[in-house]
């Protein structure tokens, strides 16, 4: 993140937009985001003043905040000495953990899409419209998707189509259709295409039967062809320049509401059920007896209680059994797993239980989210979003060390960059889970042993506690990183 150079968050003249703005907030001329003293502010340009005032005066802001669809903010007092073009600085409520669409499971993307459409619907009722529809503007706050870009609004001009329609289809509709009809893993296309999935690509990847579904036919297949047809500009195909004020060049408010309604119906009809998951039966197939498993839970709870404050990252969280322990302790918790089905189940479970402190996300730790976009800085890598106060790495190390051939020293080094405290489980080679991993391959891991594990992790961490779990041969360690001493 880029630190702000301003001397005053209320718009002091030393704010320099080129250096102060966060790397993801440079596209919109209406303002930018900057960080000062660990707080995140949004600087609003005077050209946006009328629109901002309408957002407040029309009641839209209050309505959206009441419905938990827009991040609430506080207006900072204005200074006498304002920087050029400055209108207002606001202090939005901070999101505990910024996540990206390619890290969301199916139902999270669906919820974010539905929330976006609900916002647009409310906008139209207040003579406003969403001027952009980036999925990156939606974040999960207390378990619900919320719009974090307070400058995403524009005044609605009667007769004008929705400027963000293309972006909505590329950021939400196409990925949802692909996840629902083709393969849930195609959400990863969002990693490559920062402005959403190209519609011609989505159309090519969708099965033929989607031509029979009206919403997909119109908003993806025909939309893709329309984009291609008009790619060289409208005038070339249709002739003369448009004449301002022509009554035939309009999209009525009713049609716009119909479009939003149609898109909402399309989003709600997309379904995906995790039919089988790599880890679905994991808890049933471990070497734990009921008593030993209960002791593991109790051990994790006790260690979490005395661990470093801040967020908990549960690495390899599966369906979130241990994340829930952290959540119940009041810790903001991110539950990472590489399996979209496990994350889906975890998310649905969180909704069912009303657990708002847990954010399940799809993350492959052997290839964690990288910095992407302009200068590789628009979207943060996983490490940039840390370090977490505490990482849980339970029943994980053998997958990294044996399935992925990552040596202990590298695992320890990586973990020391993403957390201060670490609660980690060592699974011995004699464990059936490890034996299963070795069953189809040569054992080239003579160094996979408890003493080597302890030696390597001791280079990066101070070890506090070692708890041997009965009947399983597994060991849980509580550690604090040495890197954090600096």
């Amino acid at each position, binding site marked *: 993140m880029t630190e702000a150079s301003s001397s005053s968050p209320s718009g002091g003249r030393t704010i320099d937009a080129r250096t102060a703005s966060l790397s993801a907030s440079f596209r919109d001329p209406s303002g930018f985001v900057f960080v000062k003293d660990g707080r995140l502010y949004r600087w609003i340009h005077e050209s946006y003043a009328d629109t901002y005032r309408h957002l407040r005066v029309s009641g839209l802001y209050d309505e959206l905040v009441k419905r938990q669809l827009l991040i609430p903010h506080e207006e900072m007092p204005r200074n006498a000495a304002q920087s050029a073009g400055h209108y207002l600085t606001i202090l939005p409520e901070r999101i505990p953990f910024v996540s990206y669409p390619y890290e969301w499971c199916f139902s999270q993307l669906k919820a974010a899409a539905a929330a976006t459409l609900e916002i647009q619907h409310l906008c139209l009722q207040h003579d406003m419209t969403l001027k952009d529809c980036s999925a990156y503007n939606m974040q999960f706050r207390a378990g619900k998707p919320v719009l974090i870009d307070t400058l995403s609004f524009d005044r609605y001009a009667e007769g004008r*189509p929705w400027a963000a329609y293309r972006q909505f289809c590329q950021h939400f509709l196409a990925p949802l259709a692909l996840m629902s009809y083709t393969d849930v893993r195609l959400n990863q296309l969002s990693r490559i295409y920062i402005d959403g999935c190209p519609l011609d690509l989505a159309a090519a990847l969708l099965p033929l039967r989607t031509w029979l579904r009206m919403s997909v036919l119109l908003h993806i297949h025909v939309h893709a062809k329309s984009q291609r047809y*008009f790619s060289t500009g409208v005038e070339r195909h249709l002739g003369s320049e448009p004449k301002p004020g022509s009554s035939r060049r309009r999209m009525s408010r009713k049609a716009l509401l119909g479009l939003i309604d149609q898109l909402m119906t399309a989003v709600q009809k997309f379904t995906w059920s995790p039919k089988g998951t790599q880890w679905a039966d994991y808890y049933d197939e471990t070497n734990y007896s009921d008593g030993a498993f209960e002791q593991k839970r109790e051990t994790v709870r006790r260690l979490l209680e005395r661990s470093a404050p801040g967020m908990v990252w549960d690495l390899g969280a599966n369906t979130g059994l241990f994340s829930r322990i952290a959540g119940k302790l009041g810790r903001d918790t991110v539950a990472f797993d590489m399996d979209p089905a496990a994350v889906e189940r975890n998310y649905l479970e969180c909704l069912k239980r009303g657990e708002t402190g847990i954010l399940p996300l799809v993350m492959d730790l052997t290839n964690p989210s990288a910095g992407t976009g302009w200068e590789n800085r628009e979207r943060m890598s996983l490490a940039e979003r840390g370090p977490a106060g505490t990482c849980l790495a339970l029943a994980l190390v053998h997958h990294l060390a044996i399935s992925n051939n990552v040596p202990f020293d590298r695992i320890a080094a990586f973990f020391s960059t993403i957390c201060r405290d670490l609660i980690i489980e060592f699974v011995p080679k004699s464990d059936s889970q490890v034996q299963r991993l070795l069953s189809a391959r040569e054992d080239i891991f003579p160094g996979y042993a408890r003493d080597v594990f302890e030696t390597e992790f001791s280079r990066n961490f101070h070890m506090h506690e070692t708890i041997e779990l009965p009947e399983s041969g597994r060991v849980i360690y509580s550690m604090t990183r040495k890197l954090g001493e600096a």
Partner: protein
Amino acid sequence: MPSGAIPFVAVAVLLPAAIPNQALAYIDPGAGSYMLQLLAAGAISALFAVKVFWGRIKAFFKGETDKEPEN
């Protein structure tokens, strides 16, 4: 694909005035996306009207209070 292009050729012939006003958005709305909305507006609007009307009929028979249309 000639058959796929037919609707667009028809549109080009029948609706030469359906060229949008300049979109004053900082993101590119996309000419094709913009045009598609204009061209489909009539049908979308009609379908929406039918849906709202049908909703009212269902509400009437269910004995629910008539709700204000969503516009």
